[in-house]
């Protein structure tokens, strides 16, 4: 289908601001009388605040006040997992205990040192398996796990059970959660190749470039919060609740966000933004709270680390007949995360496993809080699975590409515990396209060729994430000026989807992009609700709402035209600036005229009544405030059917130096299978960025806590090993299948997360290939591990460890 905007590049409105430095992130704002807050954070991994004596600090000149957990939770802290705004019951080092406001940061930091804090120290644990063993320490007050609707609980295995798991065996304890489909036993019985192993993957921090600084002030009873988030309008209501202010009196300002990657999607993952709001309310001054890199590490969250056991069976023809998977998920210091479940779902989706069983227990540790990070679960497990696929191919005498094609998801396929059908799926096409672009057939014979100390390795990776939601709202307004205002509540974290999805409205109305304005950036610009911008959903979800709202507008335009110019609404056609009769194009009116008429007519035309049912509260509020200002299209999106997948495929060629353990990526091609392409540059950026993240997961990034005392060791960019220019290839090939999805009006699905998983999978497979088929069963595979493997050195490191060098 030929589109005017969909599939075309454009200049997103904020990009000039980004290259000139003019666009403002939360810490770039200032306000008269603004004071500066700094955080006093927990010095212990697990403790209880007994007393805070701030009298000496408060007596200092230039100190304006403090905020403690008692201020935030006058009725006591909620006994639930999840980050608190401030806490008296820290379960990780660096958790904010109080904030202090002063004339400048230096004074605040000095004042901090004059606060007398008495803390009772409690036992701590850094590795889930250490907590799981009977008698092991518990990360939380009241247990080491949290059971939904039941509260904190203790999950313990016998010493033998833990030891048996550690030595590579299937866990025998009952798991907290699980699902299964198909006949697992029959699947394994029918298998000619079975691979069984324990594995571990590292949790590691998000480390967005912008620390989660926030600034807040109160004016006329309203709270203005300059914050950072992935999800602009989705944040508003829950954030207002955390601050304790009615939604109508809360303005959230967030023009740009310096990266999110999962940890700024929901208010509960960035409650620290409420600190300046609460403090500002208490001391009656604007408060800026700059968050440091170390604090961003501590409260910025981390991917869940997985320790698990898998058993996979393949039939002689290469079909994945059965998959059994048991995970222990590291829930960190504040709980959270469903990585293991997603990992299992991802395996089911990508490899179309005939029978599958998934079991998981989530265990807390006194480490960074966990939550979604780019492709949570799927991206870790693909790094483990890809080398296994290759091993199966080798054992069964199949080509590595063929075994993937054989198991690939296609239209009509289903996946997951409920056997949910895909809205559409073209994985074989993606594999073929990738193979062609990479020249798999031409290159694959070079695998394991050596050149001096260097050896080549090839890898194919696949990525998946459920990539679309629905049920959100859309607002568009046709202004008397003839311009279209597309109200879009997606956060601006660098995907440009707030703009690219808005173009679906322009598409419907056939308007030039130059005649459209995306209204976003702050909630008092009256935004519709949208889903949190996580789970790669925005492209799918918000093209639906923008398209729908524009359709509603178009219907109204036609009604007005018919009303004023005669005939039936269905007789009218549009061209982007005029609405006219199909039969006689001279009978018509301009968009500006229609807009003006809409305002005059009022009622449903200008958003005053006949609004869709089930509009979200925020949307209602926005519409009520916009009512009468323009001809409005308002839309509530119904639920979609089935599972819209985002699929990726990556082919890579590496050179591994057997003497240094270093790898160099010689070639890397990533292909997206995400329905119709909405924004090619944006899509390419997601594939490139996903590649860098995949490299981080596979070979670099880490999460270090000192086992002796729980101190975090990887609090900055240096120690957490964020990939640089020189750790990533100079060229990343990209491509896309570009076949439309039926559940989306423009045929689009999301892609952000799978863009990473395919790369982590391909890279791990390539390393295994280069090492002649050695499986590390872990991610990342770092330089030292490669050297040790080649030299036959074994260290006293625990293979299933979490939060240290092995995971």
């Amino acid at each position, binding site marked *: 289908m030929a589109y005017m905007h969909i599939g075309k590049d454009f200049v997103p409105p904020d990009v000039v601001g980004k290259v000139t430095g003019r666009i403002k992130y939360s810490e770039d704002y200032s306000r008269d009388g603004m004071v500066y807050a*700094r*955080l*006093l*954070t*927990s*010095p212990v991994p697990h403790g209880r605040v007994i007393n805070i004596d701030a009298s000496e600090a408060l007596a200092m000149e230039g100190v304006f006040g403090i905020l403690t957990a008692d201020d935030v939770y006058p009725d006591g802290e909620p006994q639930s997992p999840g980050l608190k705004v401030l806490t008296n019951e820290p379960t990780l*080092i*660096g958790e904010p205990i109080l904030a202090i406001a002063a004339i400048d*940061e*230096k004074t605040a*930091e*000095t004042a*901090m*040192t004059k606060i007398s*804090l008495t803390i009772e120290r409690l036992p701590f644990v850094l590795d889930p398996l250490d907590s799981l063993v009977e008698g092991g320490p518990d990360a939380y007050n009241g247990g080491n796990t949290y059971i939904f609707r039941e509260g904190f609980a203790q999950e313990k295995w016998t010493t033998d059970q833990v030891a048996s798991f550690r030595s590579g065996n299937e866990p025998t304890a009952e798991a907290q959660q699980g699902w299964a489909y198909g006949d697992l036993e029959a699947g394994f019985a029918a298998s000619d190749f079975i691979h069984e192993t324990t594995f571990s993957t590292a949790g590691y921090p998000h480390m967005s470039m912008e620390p989660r600084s926030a600034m807040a002030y109160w004016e006329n009873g309203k709270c203005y919060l300059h914050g950072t988030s992935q999800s602009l309008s989705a944040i508003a209501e829950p954030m207002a609740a955390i601050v304790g202010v009615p939604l109508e009196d809360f303005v959230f300002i967030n023009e740009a966000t310096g990266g999110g990657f999962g940890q700024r999607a929901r208010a509960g993952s960035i409650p620290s933004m409420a600190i300046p709001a609460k403090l500002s309310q208490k001391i009656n001054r604007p408060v800026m709270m*700059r968050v*440091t*890199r*170390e*604090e961003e590490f*501590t409260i910025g969250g981390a991917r869940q680390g997985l320790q698990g056991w898998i058993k996979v069976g393949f039939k002689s023809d290469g079909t994945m007949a059965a998959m059994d998977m048991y995970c222990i998920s590291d829930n960190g210091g504040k709980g959270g995360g469903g990585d293991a479940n997603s990992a299992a779902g991802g395996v089911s989706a990508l490899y179309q496993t005939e029978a599958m069983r998934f079991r998981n227990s989530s265990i807390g540790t006194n480490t960074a809080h966990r939550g979604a990070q780019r492709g949570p679960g799927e991206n870790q497990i693909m790094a483990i699975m890809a080398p296994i696929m290759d091993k199966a191919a080798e054992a069964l005498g199949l080509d590595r590409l063929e075994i993937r094609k054989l198991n690939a998801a296609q239209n009509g396929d289903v996946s997951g515990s409920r056997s949910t059908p895909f809205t559409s799926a073209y994985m074989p096409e993606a594999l073929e396209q990738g193979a062609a672009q990479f020249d798999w057939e031409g290159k694959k014979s070079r695998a394991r060729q050596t050149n001096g*100390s260097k050896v080549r390795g090839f890898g194919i990776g696949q990525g998946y994430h459920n990539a679309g939601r629905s049920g959100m709202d859309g607002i568009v307004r046709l202004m008397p000026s003839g311009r279209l205002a597309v109200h879009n509540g997606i956060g601006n974290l660098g995907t440009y989807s707030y703009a690219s999805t808005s173009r679906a409205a322009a598409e419907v109305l056939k308007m030039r992009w130059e005649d459209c304005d995306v209204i976003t950036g702050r909630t008092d610009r009256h935004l519709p609700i949208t889903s949190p911008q996580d789970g790669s959903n925005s492209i799918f979800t918000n093209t639906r709402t923008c398209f729908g709202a524009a359709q509603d507008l178009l219907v109204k335009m036609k009604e007005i035209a018919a009303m004023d110019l005669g005939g039936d609404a269905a007789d009218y056609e549009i061209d982007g600036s005029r609405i006219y009769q199909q039969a006689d194009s001279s009978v018509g009116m301009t968009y500006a005229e229609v807009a003006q008429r809409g305002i005059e007519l009022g009622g449903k035309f200008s958003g005053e009544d006949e609004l869709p049912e089930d509009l979200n509260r925020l949307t209602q509020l926005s519409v009520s405030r916009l009512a009468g200002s323009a001809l409005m299209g308002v839309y509530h999106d119904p639920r979609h059917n089935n599972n819209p997948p985002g699929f990726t495929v990556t082919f890579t060629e590496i050179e591994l130096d057997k*003497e*240094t*353990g*270093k790898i160099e990526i010689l070639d890397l091609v990533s292909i997206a299978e995400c329905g119709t392409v909405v924004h090619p540059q944006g899509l390419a950026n997601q594939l490139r960025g996903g590649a860098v993240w995949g490299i981080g997961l596979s070979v*670099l990034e880490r999460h*270090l806590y*000192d*086992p*002796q*005392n729980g*101190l975090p*060791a990887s*609090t900055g*960019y*240096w*120690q957490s*090993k964020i*990939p*640089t*220019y*020189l*750790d990533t290839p100079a060229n990343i090939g990209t491509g896309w299948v570009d076949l439309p999805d039926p559940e989306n009006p423009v045929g689009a699905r999301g892609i952000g997360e799978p863009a990473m998983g395919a790369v982590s999978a391909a890279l791990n497979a390539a390393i295994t290939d280069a090492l002649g088929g050695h499986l590390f069963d872990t991610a990342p595979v*770092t*330089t*030292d*591990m490669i*050297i*040790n493997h*080649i*030299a036959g*050195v*074994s*260290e*006293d*490191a625990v293979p299933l460890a979490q939060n*240290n*060098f092995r995971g």
Partner: protein
Amino acid sequence: MVATSHDVMPDIELYQPTDEANALELANTLGSDGWLLGGGQDTYGWLKDRNKSPAAMIELTQVDAWKGVKEIADGVEIGAVTTLTEITNNPLIQSKFGLLATAAGRVASPQIRNVGTLGGNVAQDARCWYYRRGLDCYRAGGNICYADSPEGLNREHAIFGASRCVAVSPSDTAPALVALDATMVVSSTSGQRLIPAQDFFVGPARDIVNMTVLNDGEILTAVRLPNTWANAEFYFEKVADRNVWDFALVNIAAAIKVSGGTIEDARIVCGAVECTPRRLDAVENAIRGQQRSEQLAEQVAAIATDGARPLNYNHFKLPLMQNLVKRAIRG
């Protein structure tokens, strides 16, 4: 700091002497209260964290006499506050002492090399994360090492020469200077001392809180490279986790004089394996007079790690070091 992540520079006085005498006088007067500031890349973190609290900084980079590269009678003299970028790009160093140019070019990141100085790079403090976190370990004047214990995170730590402290020499240029048999020019108000690069660095057995032999009031003002090793065959390699920013897991600097395929003389030095750059005398002795070959490299590599004592997580440094020695000898 443990409880609060300090991030703001606290009040500290700053002196910016522009002539040598004034700078030395300040260093002498301020003594241990004065922090010598080169490019500052190993300064501001300490200060922002409030883990070190000098009363004043003495900026050395405004003293022109301590900057630049010049030819002297027997070689080249490099001012201690010459930036690493300048050293990397200097034609004289590139042509005669390419080893140092290469090593300087592998330090940290371009921006750090743009302001970081040679003196600062060789005199920088240990990068052990426990120490950098402000813990009161041996190196900070305390009575314990957190890294060397059965559970300590010591992947990046020493395999040689540990004495209570297991930190390693983090510098990339230091091994090159030792390999080139450089002389360190150390000045103070009471005069100048010339110290061979090899003796400039000090391990924890002798001094557990300092990495160099500089005393209070002394300033490293220049580094002299004798012509002895000019235009020898050089080999430098740094293996680090990331190819930017990271300190070496192991690095190697070698200067080898070859004549008709025979190794006449050699100096081979590894960094990041000991608290000081480690000169591999035994390897040098083993290859002197031998034909430079793959076979020789294979034969002698194991000697390099004789006496190594790995910790819990750094066994990999032994094969890595052997492999780098092989590569250096192989050429």
